[in-house]
């Protein structure tokens, strides 16, 4: 790594050399790999199998070249391009080109999230909890923990790269391109691992460090999304994004390796930066010194709701900003969706009969809203899970030892979750509309955009209800709704592509929501989702009132 082993200066007997900045690296690496062996295996297998499944499903759903060309003309729409890639090979859309163009983005987002969380878990979170002090007090070099964490990420991403290459080859795709695609995914994961090593130097909180890392991921996604929509095969904006670099290797079309050199250079630069930053700070400290707080609380800080709001308002603002920027940027492509119709009519007149111009715009809005709602759902799940964090950290004990009942405390936590989710849905709808207005599209109206987003509230409530029900009865499993959301993400991104039976798609609460403004409004599913959410919440409260608090 960057912190090059400063060669033992002078000519001391080598058996007596004092340790370098990397002393203890091997032990730590083995320890990290052991701690993460199950977690990382699950990540690697999921991503590898996603590729295998996509390659097989695509081959089943689009058996002939004509089928695939029809798919190519659909995927060229702005909404699909944002969620896919720069569109190499659209003129001869082979199975490999399909996998590279449509699946790689998902896999890269997944490895990026995995890598960011992995680095933060092993570095900043360890410092935050004080465990790092125990380790650093041993015979362990200054840079050893961060280096070991980065090497752990390297092992994980290499495993994913090789496994993806193997499984794609196994699905019958070209060997070199399969492994190139796997390598691109793995290297992109490492870029974000390096990003996280830097963000861990900046802030004292693990949560803030991973948040910053995810902001960088969001920016990388957005840059290449805008670039790819602006221009087929990407504009200069696409070349500012690590995700863009990986997509620019043109796997299965006209493979080139050199864009990955940009990723490797970025990794080296980021690691050099982090080692320079790390040398300037103390263990446990961030670069910014903590500020003093109030000696006395504001009069408003007198209820569990005020406390929960105080705890979460910062993250709500961050989520709002992220979703707002993403929605506004997406909204500016509404007119491009309209323009598509003209181009497509030339290639394929049948399509114009299937979709009118307005349908395409509405479809675009619906698809973008679905995507934004995934973000809102992620906030809602994370926010509801804070209750468990308060409990396991022991912070809930002094509160429940006052005159606050369990119902009131959990209700206050969830009120913040609910208010936050409503705010974020409104931000998504309004920002999308403002993006559309900024390029001169006034149909759909602002109200329609907002309705398209807010109509998802019952589905988000079901996800929260699931967290609460598990929290009330089986608190150890309360994180399970993340799996449901990941599944909802796959359904939302690929929908019919994956060739899943309807009942399986229906496992995601988001799937039941009418896709406004394109589809007709249908109250039935919304009433059903609301009833389910209420039942789950009620069950959760009953369970939480009955059970022992988890004490550590």
């Amino acid at each position: 790594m960057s912190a090059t082993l400063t060669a033992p200066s002078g000519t001391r007997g080598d058996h007596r050399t004092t340790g370098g900045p990397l002393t203890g690296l091997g032990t730590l690496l083995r320890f990290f790999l052991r701690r993460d062996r199950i977690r990382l295996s699950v990540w690697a297998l999921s991503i590898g199998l996603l590729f295998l499944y996509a390659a097989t499903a695509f081959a089943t759903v689009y058996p002939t070249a004509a089928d695939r060309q029809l798919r190519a003309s659909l995927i060229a729409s702005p909404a699909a391009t944002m969620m896919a890639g720069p569109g190499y090979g659209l003129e001869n859309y082979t199975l490999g080109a399909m996998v590279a163009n449509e699946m790689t983005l998902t896999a890269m987002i997944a490895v990026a999230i995995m890598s960011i969380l992995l680095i933060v878990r092993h570095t900043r979170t360890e410092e935050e909890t004080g465990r790092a002090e125990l380790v650093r007090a041993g015979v362990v070099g200054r840079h050893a923990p961060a280096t070991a964490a980065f090497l752990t990420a390297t092992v994980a991403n290499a495993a994913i790269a090789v496994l993806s290459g193997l499984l794609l080859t196994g699905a019958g795709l070209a060997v070199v391109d399969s492994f190139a695609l796997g390598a691109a995914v793995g290297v992109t994961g490492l870029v974000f691992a390096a990003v996280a090593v830097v963000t861990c130097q900046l802030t004292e909180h693990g949560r803030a460090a991973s948040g910053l890392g995810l902001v960088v991921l969001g920016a990388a996604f957005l840059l290449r999304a805008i670039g790819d929509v602006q221009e087929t095969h990407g504009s200069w904006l696409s070349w500012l994004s690590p995700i863009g670099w990986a997509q620019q290797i043109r796997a299965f079309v006209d493979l080139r390796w050199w864009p990955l050199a940009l990723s490797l250079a970025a990794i080296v630069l980021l690691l050099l930066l982090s080692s320079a930053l790390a040398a300037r700070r103390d263990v446990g400290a961030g670069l910014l010194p903590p500020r003093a707080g109030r000696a006395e609380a504001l009069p408003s800080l007198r209820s569990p709701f005020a406390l929960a709001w105080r705890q979460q308002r910062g993250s709500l603002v961050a989520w709002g900003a992220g979703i707002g920027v993403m929605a506004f940027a997406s909204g500016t492509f509404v007119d491009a969706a309209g323009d598509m119709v003209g181009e497509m009519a030339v290639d394929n007149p049948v399509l114009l009969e299937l979709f009118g111009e307005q349908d395409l715009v509405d479809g675009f809005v619906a698809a973008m809203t679905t995507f934004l709602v995934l973000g809102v759902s992620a906030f809602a799940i994370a926010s509801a899970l804070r209750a468990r964090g308060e409990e396991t950290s022991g912070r809930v004990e002094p509160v429940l030892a006052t005159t606050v009942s369990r119902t009131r405390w959990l209700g206050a936590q969830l009120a913040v979750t609910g208010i936050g989710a409503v705010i974020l849905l409104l931000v998504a709808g309004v920002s999308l509309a403002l993006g559309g207005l900024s390029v001169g599209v006034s149909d759909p109206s602002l109200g329609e955009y907002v309705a398209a987003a807010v109509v998802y509230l019952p589905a988000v409530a079901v996800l929260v209800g699931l967290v609460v029900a598990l929290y009330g009865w089986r608190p150890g499993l309360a994180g399970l709704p993340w799996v449901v959301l990941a599944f909802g993400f796959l359904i939302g991104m690929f929908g019919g592509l994956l060739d899943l039976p309807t009942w399986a798609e229906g496992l995601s609460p988001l799937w039941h929501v009418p896709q406004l403004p394109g589809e007709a409004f249908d109250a039935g599913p919304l009433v059903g989702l609301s009833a389910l959410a209420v039942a789950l919440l009620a069950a959760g409260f009953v369970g939480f009132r009955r059970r022992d608090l988890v004490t550590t």
Partner: protein
Amino acid sequence: MSTPRTSQPAVKIHDLHKSFGTVAALDGLDLVVPHGQVAGFLGPNGSGKSTTIRVLLGLLRADSGSVRLLGGDPWADAVTLHRRLAYVPGDVNLWPNLSGGEAIDLLTRLRGKVDPARRAELLERFELDPTKKARTYSKGNRQKVALVAALASDVELLVLDEPTSGLDPLMESVFTQCIQEVKAEGRSVLLSSHILAEVEKLCDTVTIIRAGRTVQSGTLDELRHLTRSTITAVTTHDPETLAGHPGVHDLVAEPATDGTRVRFDVDNDDVATVLRTLTDLGVRSLQAAPPSLEELFLRHYGDELSAMDPAGAR
């Protein structure tokens, strides 16, 4: 105070059982905190002190046994009872983005009335800077935050779980004063600890538990026999007369350069007569050590220890 203070005990636990899975944390525990008294709750780590306190606070549900807290049921009446008590956890965790002052205000407001003068006085006595963010506090300072929040509240009962484990000796004496004031005001205190000296200083009654079961309880005077001092002395004469003294236990004698070295435990009530005997024997040097909790526990756990260590079974 909404309810008149009566002479019924603040806490009365009989035959309390609580298991976590197959592990029995509490196995027939008895505990009484008489009204207006300071009750010591002694036991080694893992003996069930914190579990008992969490049952008292309604955070855990008892498997069986009777538990009365301020005349009510700690599980069913938790909210109304909590108006009349304040709690200091053994391991204080605070909200990282709140300052210590904000945490104190929040906790006291959630309980009811706030007395700003009392809060300011306590902050000064405990030398606590309320503007620092909770994450920058040491363990001791986090404990002070919880102590100030509890002591600033006008409540009938204080439930304190090893409240001094992070305090330095100076702050411990401030804490001792505060508890004596609380007692003088006629309030009740449940004080869990593993430091015998602290309990001796403050408590009227003591309950000693091990492995989730009460092994000794009573007033300090009743337990006086448990508190023996260890005396080491060198005498010029043969210390044979000591062996017959009823207050002397576990006598060991060995030859020393200038006489005989003796080591024994003495019941605190008998110190005066034993010292007289020692003087008659011609004391050349004398050391007296207060009884430590370790020795107290050794007496209770001695059977297990000697089973583990055959060399120690004499």
